[in-house]
Structures are given as C-alpha cells and as structure tokens.
C-alpha cells in the first residue's frame, strides 16, 4: 500500500480533468445563478425579497426546503458530470499508457501491476467523487454569498433569510454519502471500463459500450427477456440508499407551516441499509473480478 498515495497523485497529474471538470461546473453553476438573480431583479421588481421572505413562501421550513431543492438540483449536475468523467477516466487509464508507449517505463519501476490497477480503481471510486463533493461544497458557499449580496442589496436580513435557512452540514454530508455510494453502486461498470481500457487495442469507448448494446439485443431475440438491460441500465435508479422518498410529504404544507421538522436530506438516506444490501456487494465483487482481469492483462500480455 506504500505506493498508493504516489500512484494516485500520479493519476491526478495525468488526468487534470479530475479537478478541472468539477471546477468548471462550479463556475458555470455560480455564473448561472448570478445571472438569474440579476435577471430577476431587472425584469420583475415585484419579486424583490418575496423569494426569501414570508409573503409567498410560508416559513422558515419551506424556505429551507426551497434552498435545499436548489442545492440538490446543482448537486445533480455535478453527479451527472461525475458519471461522464468517471467513464472517460476509466477508459483512458490503462489505454493511454499503451498508446503513448510509456507502459514499459512505468513497468520498469518496482511497482506491481496490481498496485497500478488498484490505484486507478481507488481513483475512480473515491478520489473523483471526493473532488466532486469538494466542488459541490464550494459552489454552495459561493451561491450563498451571491444570494447574501442580493438579499442585502434589497434590504433583507441575510443572516436570517439565507444562512439561517440552510442546513449546510446536512446537505454536505448527504452530498458526500450519495456521491460515494453512487460510485460504489456503479463500481461494476467502473471495473468493466478498467478492464476494457487494459484489454482493447483500439477505440475503448466503442469497445466498452458495444457489448452493453449488443447483449440486450441478443437476449431479447433468443429469450424475450430484458434482464441484462435492466441490470445494467436500470442499476442507477435502483440504488438501495434512500428510504422511501415521499416528495409530497417532503413539501407537506401542514408540516412546514408549523415548522415541526427541520428539512433533512440525511434522514432520507439509509447508509446501514446500503451496506447490508446484497446487491451492493454483488456489484463490488463483479467490479473486483473485472479489476483482477485488468491486472492479469497488464501483467501477462506481451505487447509485441
């Protein structure tokens, strides 16, 4: 394990998209929200503080819910970008070194193939999500500062209307848990991409997705079933992390009116249930098998 930190640092050096992508999205989201406020202020003088004060939003809890929903919305943008980033990172990670012929240099150092592949797996499952969560947190802070400026310019009490209305740590903890759990949940695909990256002689993107499209077609032709497609493409929606999410209850006016509850995203997340779910562990095992195959290919294939 001694080499893992050096190897992971190497991955970040090589794949600058790991931090450039979340930063770029943070900037875009912040600019959009800034532009939104400017536009709202310019065209609709009626809106003013109404967005944040009690006139059309019932009370503290509802305002809290509204801000949380805004945060959730921006977080989904980051998660979507993370999925694309992870796909491209994995497909490149064991392919680029063969394409630029640097693999023999890396292999001339006393680092095993297993250590190398594991470092790429750890980068995909933990490091990429952590950079994304950091960017989510920074984006939230930047947007709160922008909102504070807007509210203060309108003569509102930002400390109460903005900062008093968000459960920051609850939001951030939820972002961290959801992002990491999503990466672990989707790890079979991460493993598959790493294997394709180690295995393919050309066009890793095509080689990775072709079987995912062809196998369901063959399955449908011969068995009239959609098991593979639902297992692979449906997996994202089946993550066993959330308690029964009842959006009607989330925005239940009665509850909010009386300020009974603090809006908490974490309360909807069931980490124990996630960790005890067999489908999580089956996924981790599938990921491990693909990663092992990737190690085997890197170790034993004769490149000439």
């Amino acid at each position, binding site marked *: 394990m001694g080499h893992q930190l050096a190897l992971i640092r*190497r991955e970040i050096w090589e794949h600058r998209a790991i931090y450039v992508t979340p930063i770029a999205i943070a900037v875009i989201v912040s600019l959009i929200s800034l532009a939104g406020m400017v536009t709202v202020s310019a065209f609709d003088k009626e809106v003013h503080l109404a967005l944040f004060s009690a006139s059309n939003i019932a009370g503290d809890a509802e305002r809290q819910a509204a801000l949380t929903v805004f945060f959730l919305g921006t977080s989904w943008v980051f998660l979507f970008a993370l999925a694309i980033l992870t796909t491209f990172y994995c497909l490149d990670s064991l392919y680029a070194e063969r394409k*630029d*012929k640097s693999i023999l240099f890396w*292999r001339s150092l006393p680092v095993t193939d297993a250590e190398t592949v594991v470092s790429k797996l750890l980068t995909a499952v933990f490091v990429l999500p952590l950079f994304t969560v950091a960017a989510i947190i920074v984006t939230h802070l930047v947007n709160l500062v922008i909102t504070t400026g807007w509210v203060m310019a309108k003569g509102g009490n930002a400390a109460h209307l903005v900062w008093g209305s968000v459960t920051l740590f609850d939001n951030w903890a939820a972002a961290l848990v959801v992002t990491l759990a999503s990466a672990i949940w989707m790890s079979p695909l991460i493993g598959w991409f790493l294997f394709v990256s180690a295995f393919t002689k050309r066009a890793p993107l095509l080689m990775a997705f072709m079987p995912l499209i062809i196998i369901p077609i063959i399955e449908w032709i011969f068995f009239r079933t959609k098991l593979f497609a639902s297992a692979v493409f449906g997996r994202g929606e089946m993550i066993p992390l959330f308690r029964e999410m009842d959006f009607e209850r989330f925005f239940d006016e009665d509850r909010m009116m009386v300020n009974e509850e603090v809006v908490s995203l974490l309360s909807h997340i069931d980490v124990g249930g996630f960790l005890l779910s067999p489908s999580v562990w089956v996924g981790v095992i599938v990921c491990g098998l693909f990663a092992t195959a990737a190690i085997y290919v890197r170790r034993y294939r004769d490149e000439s």
Partner: protein
Amino acid sequence: MTSLVSARGVSKHYGKVCAVDNVSFDIENGRIMGLIGPNGAGKTTLLKAVLGLTDCDGDLSVLGLNPFRQRKELMQNICFIADVAVLPRWIRVSQLLDFVESTHPNFSREKAEGLLAKTKVASRRNSRVRELSKGMVTQLHLSIIAAIDARLLVLDEPTLGLDIIFRKEFYANLLSDYFDEERTILVTTHQVEEIENILTDIMFINEGRIILDTSMDSLGEDYVELLTAGEKADEARRAGPISERDVFGKKVMLFEKPDRARLEQLGELHTPSVADLFVAKVKGASA
C-alpha cells in the same frame, strides 16, 4: 565469479515462430555486454525475457531471481532504457523525479538532481516531457536511471533517433555516471561502431541463436583480418577465411583461430571491427 544473468536452454515461441532458440549464456558482474543482431534476430525478445516482460521456456535467472515470476524484486535492482520504453509525454520533469523518488527504494534524488544540473534539462524542471527535445528526454531518462543504485542496466537501442553528438554524449555519460565494478550493463544497438570501444563482452544473435559469445579481449586473439592482394590472396584463401571482401582492389579476409605466423607472411594483419566480424558471422551462419 558469479553470474548476474544465467541462461540455460532458453527458448521463446510466438505461435510457430521461434524467436529465441535454445540459448545459453552467462553475463558476469561488472561487465558491459553488447548484444548484436540483425532485425528480427530475437534481441528484443531475449531482453524482454531478462526483464521479466515475457515468459520463456528453459532456465533463466537474473540476479538469482526468476525474472517473470519475481518482477517486483527484480525491478528494484535492474533498470532499463529502451527505445520503446518512452517517458510519458504529459509528465513534468519535477513530477517524474517525485514519482520515481516515492516508488523506487534505490533512487537517489540528490544524485539525479546533480546529474540533471549538468544537462540542458536543468532549466526545464517545470516543462512537460513533450516539450523537450528527444535528446533532452534521453538525458533526463539516463540521469534518472544513473541515480538508481541498480546492479543491472539493460539498454535496448537507447540512442535510436538521436543525433551523433547526443549519441556520443550518452555513452560517455553512461561510463562516467553509471558504470563501476559493481554494475553490469547489457546493451543492444545497431550502431555497433559507437559502442565497441566500451564493451567488455560481445554476443551475436541471429535467427534466435547465439553465434558468437566472447570477451573483447579474446576477440583480438581469435579473429584477425588480413589485407592482401594478388597471388598471396590465393594462398590466403586456401587457409580458409570466414569472409572475403574487396577494398580498393585489395582483398580483406577474416580468419577465425588464425595461424598468425603464416598469415603475417601474406599481408597486413588487423583486429577486425565488430561490425565486419558481425557481417561475416551472420553471412557464414546463413550460408
């Protein structure tokens, strides 16, 4: 004396093609061995077997290790520069030094910095490898390798594509910065003339077989080149040269295990160049 590399009946097949055919040799500590052979002779395959990059039949031991099974241990005491083992183009010079320092137990950062300070790379520490010239990349690679306290250095066409100045400098630096009695070098190259004066031993390989394995010292005793002409040439031909060629109207003949006293009567004697001997041997082997 202990053998650093010891091969007994080593073979490597790619399908039906036999790249290395039942080869046996030893490389002893503190030697500089040149492995010379035409394209496709099996040089690179043999080096890959020594480096543990490919499996092979027979017994091959490098530093007492099985190179294919014990690669990690092997790589702590062995370095290689190959034309194909290029440095990653995206990495910065300083990052490369950081990475090798944190993964190689026998790497001396201080020594590498000292060696780099003498090269043009010194002022380019923040440059990426792709921004350096090919010569600078080779200097960088050699500086890193020379700063690794390894017992065996394997060089596979290390100067391919470099201009003559860099090539000369490369081998000069190799001797001054890297080589000592504790270290051993195994090198292959097409430009035999440039390395023959630094080699202590030489091995010719052709069609997967070793056709010559000797020290440079005994090369001068075992082989002689005769420059002769006219009737003396006919007489010399009866002594059984392994090759004959024309140079400016004279005959140059190469003899193995020569009868020097007799040949001296027939013309001028020289120690053959490695390149000429190589051509004679390869032609002789395929004739």
